[in-house]
């Protein structure tokens, strides 16, 4: 999504968000991420105004004091930025890819099932199955921090069974243009 993104051409406007809308965003985030109210409060204090940055293709990035906090595509789920996931790694359910997949991920490729099901990869156990269409944090074998964020294309159990094709669609990854963008 952010493989090619430059603020000068892709941003169409910045507006501050109404408080009523902010409230619904806040409750949306609380229900979608595994985060408690106090932690969210410390990331995004109630008093601080949230700025909506509208971009091409229905991407909206929400920033606080110019720093991107989270983004959304159309009215899909909220994704935290990768920097935020580094600070709060528990926000999203976690999957891990094996070492061989890292360099493809860093080139922006979607994650294929075999990279997740192989020995170096990790998918949650069957009783904690992740459903299709859930934002996940992608970690890497032997690494401490997340390398990317994605959205599951199928249930994790299905990934195990099929073990073929795209399992997770990469949304943002280390070194893409959203990563390069520290201030908006």
């Amino acid at each position, binding site marked *: 999504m952010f493989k090619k993104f430059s603020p000068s051409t892709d941003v169409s406007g910045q507006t501050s968000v109404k408080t009523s809308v902010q409230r619904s965003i806040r409750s949306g985030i609380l229900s979608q991420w595994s985060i*408690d109210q*106090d*932690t969210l409060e410390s990331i995004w204090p109630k008093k601080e105004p949230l700025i909506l940055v509208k971009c091409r293709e229905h991407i909206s990035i929400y920033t606080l004091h110019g*720093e991107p906090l989270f983004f959304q595509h159309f009215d899909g789920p909220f994704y935290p930025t990768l920097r935020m996931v580094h*600070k709060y790694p528990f926000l999203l359910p976690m999957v891990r890819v094996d*070492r061989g997949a890292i*360099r493809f991920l860093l080139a922006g490729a979607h994650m294929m099932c075999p990279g997740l099901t192989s020995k*170096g990869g990790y998918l949650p156990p069957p009783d904690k199955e992740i459903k299709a269409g859930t934002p996940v944090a992608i970690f890497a074998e032997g*690494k401490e*921090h997340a390398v990317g964020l994605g959205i599951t294309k199928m249930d994790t159990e299905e990934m195990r069974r099929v073990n073929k094709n795209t399992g997770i669609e990469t949304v943002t990854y280390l070194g893409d243009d959203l990563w390069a963008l520290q201030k908006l």
Partner: protein
Amino acid sequence: MASAAAPEASSQAISPIQVRYCEVCTFPLEYCEFGSSFTKCKESLAEEDEDLYDKYYSEEALQKKLGTISLEAQSKLEKDAAAKEAKAEKKADAALKKKMASQITIKRIERHKRKYVTSIHGLEAFGVDLKKVAKQFAQKFATGASVTKNPQGQDEIVVQGDVSGDIVEMIEDGVGLLKGVPKENVVEVEEKKKKAGD
């Protein structure tokens, strides 16, 4: 670094983890090896923090890193990384060359008899913010100055009035935001208005 903007944690809130990012490639340190400037990253870390350097690049760590991947695949990976690095360096070189070769065109355009506007094109190649420079010109010459798109769709600064000489001087002296713009690349052009009926 991003860590400076970290929010303060309240009593119950879970405080953020501070991740150290590489100064060269901005990745978390452990991902430097996948970046395009691995050798440079390694050098800078070795200078700054030996403990961390040992953590990531000592023999032991390298052994552990191999993990499940086969030796063959690993060597291929390393080769790829080296190739990528060389490519990135080449690209940076080419970009620099292009930058040094690109020209700044200062055009004096006749609007009506003795009324002129001055358009400056090509400044953005030198990493200056056109909007801010336009503001600087407007302040200096006490005239209107704006950033507009020319017919080719590129951005240029248009200053009201004939100030081409002054702008050349400003670039030569590197006043304010114009610092670092090479004066050798400046070209002055004059554009006369065509007579009606031509």
